[in-house]
């Protein structure tokens, strides 16, 4: 009797990810509600920063005001929690003054697209090398659940008790139209895909915008009759989106009304800080 053939099993050695290297553990617990997706996005962000091989001393995380904008307090980088809507302006100052830093902006949909809408479009237009992560939950969570610039028509919020009548913004379309050179969408549901997308955004030279759909069960969920946080994630993030690569292969009715995930737009265009140094500073020399 011959010995049974041994199929060589390649064992995957998974090294546990040391989150504490990038967190400020003594600043936890975070302020986010049970069921909120912000923690999942934070995890994806930290793993992407790690995988990008960035030096913590050279990473700066900047935010505005809102639930998602509390992220910088929990992470061990150069961190700046600014004013409502102005994260991109502060970040532009830091990046432009010190281009060797990797500046990541964490912002919410209200922060980035309403009060900070002007800064959003002009940041994209300049193509300054910032990675902009928009936590899109269609809600002003910090103030208790008002409708935001991404709230779908008809939705309930504390300021739209009769249903919202304002059409929502598509952050990706806006970023693309304004000139961002990397535009992508992810969700808190698709965690591995999100990590990959954020990594690609970090590695992109220029303004990269990742719109991250990330439900707010506490306000949006309860007011709009979602049964639970997981139900909300399934309906909005899983069933409400489709990866852009799959979308091409699906019949139109399967894509209709769904938000596209993945990298939606990627082009090369001169980056602002490099242009300033190579064109303006060079020309000014000796004059």
């Amino acid at each position: 009797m011959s010995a049974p053939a041994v199929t060589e099993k390649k064992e995957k050695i998974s090294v546990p990810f040391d989150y504490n290297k990038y967190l400020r553990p003594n600043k936890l617990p975070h302020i986010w509600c049970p069921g909120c997706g912000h923690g999942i996005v934070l995890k994806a962000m930290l793993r992407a920063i790690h995988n990008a091989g960035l030096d913590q001393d050279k990473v700066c995380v900047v935010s505005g005001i809102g639930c998602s904008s509390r992220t910088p307090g929990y992470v061990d980088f150069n961190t700046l929690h600014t004013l409502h809507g102005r994260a991109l302006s502060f970040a532009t100052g830091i990046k432009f003054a010190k281009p060797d830093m990797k500046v990541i902006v964490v912002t919410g949909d209200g922060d980035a697209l309403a009060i900070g809408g002007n800064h959003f479009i002009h940041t994209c237009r300049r193509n300054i090398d910032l990675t902009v992560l928009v936590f899109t939950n269609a809600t002003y969570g910090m103030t208790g659940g008002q409708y935001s610039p991404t709230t779908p028509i008809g939705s309930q919020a504390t300021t739209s008790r009769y249903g919202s009548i304002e059409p929502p913004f598509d952050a990706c379309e806006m970023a693309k139209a304004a000139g961002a050179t990397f535009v992508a969408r992810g969700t808190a549901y698709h965690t591995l895909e999100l990590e990959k997308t954020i990594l690609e955004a970090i590695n992109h030279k220029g303004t990269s915008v990742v719109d991250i759909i990330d439900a707010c069960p506490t306000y949006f969920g309860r007011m709009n009759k979602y049964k639970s946080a997981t139900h909300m994630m399934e309906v909005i993030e899983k069933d409400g989106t489709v990866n852009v690569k799959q979308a091409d292969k699906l019949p139109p009715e399967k894509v209709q009304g769904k938000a596209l995930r993945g990298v939606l737009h990627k082009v090369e265009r001169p980056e602002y800080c490099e242009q300033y140094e190579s064109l303006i500073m060079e020309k000014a020399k000796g004059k």
Partner: protein
Amino acid sequence: MSEKKKKLLQGNEACVEGAIYAGCKFYAGYPITPSTEIAEGMSVRLPKVGGKFIQMEDEIAGMAATIGGSLAGFKSLTATSGPGFSLKQEALGYACLAEIPCVIVNVMRGGPSTGYPTGPSQSDIMQAKWGTHGDHPAISVTPAYVQEILTETVRAFNLSEKYRTPVVVLYDEIVGHMREPITIPAPGELEVIDRAKPDCKPEEYFPYDDRYLIAPLAPFGSGYRFHVTGLNHKQDGFPTNDSKVIRENNERIMRKIEDNKEDIWKNEEIFLDDAEIAVFAIGSTARSARFAVEKMRAEGIKAGLLRPLTIWPFPDKAVRELSKRVKAIIVPEMNLGQMVLEVERCSKGAEVLGIHRVDGEPINPGQIIEAIKKFK
């Protein structure tokens, strides 16, 4: 700048010279009359000295990016006028609480609202102190001559770096657009102060270290990883709800200025030793006042001028002492009564009379002479 240079410059151009002299390496702003020449000048000069200029999408972004540039470790400037100064207020308050040094020039034009963009005014004096919400420290310098715009811009940077707080350079459109021959000081001639930087180990660094009245500020990206927020915070920079810490910190940022007023104050006194009637004025109004006082002296009337070059913190001590010696203090100002309230507050004995004008025309010496003669 190898040696002293004589130049015929406009006030706003002198501001640019002052900023460059002070070592400013970053400017973020937005065009607005009558301060635009500062942005134009900085856009030309900064890249020549290895600095950065950026025209932002609005006034708010200009102020925010200026703070960002400073946090990255560079002396940073922004300039504005009227409506722009209003828009910058929220971020200015951020710089007060987060203790980020930066200089904001406000070339005062007629208000309120869009007002009289090309006309002079001095109606932002109170705004320079109280423009942003919450109790906060304020330093504001008030040059009256083109040469002085240069030197006061340097002093503004020095005070900002020394006290880790925003400083407002406040002058009216007349001084901003006036051309006068000035001397560019040679390097080393004027004192230039740089902010204190930490020399401790990164793990021992606190951006608001409570062992100091003014803690050293590390630039972002220098190996000191720390947190900055506009929320009330502890010495480590992280938000707090601890009422004791909130009170102590709010009081400390005021004390930075209060305890150092003697260092921050700067006054020019003309014929004050034996004066019976004093004039208290800033900017172009002080130039009219000087002319008026000299004319009165020629007529044998004992008039004098107290001209503060620091309006905030208010020179309360100088006014108080003066008020004990003179019959009256006349306060001409291109607004409907701002500095005069402070003079009244500090005055012990002397009668206080305001002269106010908000028609876009300067207060002329004749108006001041007329007032002086009332107390003759």
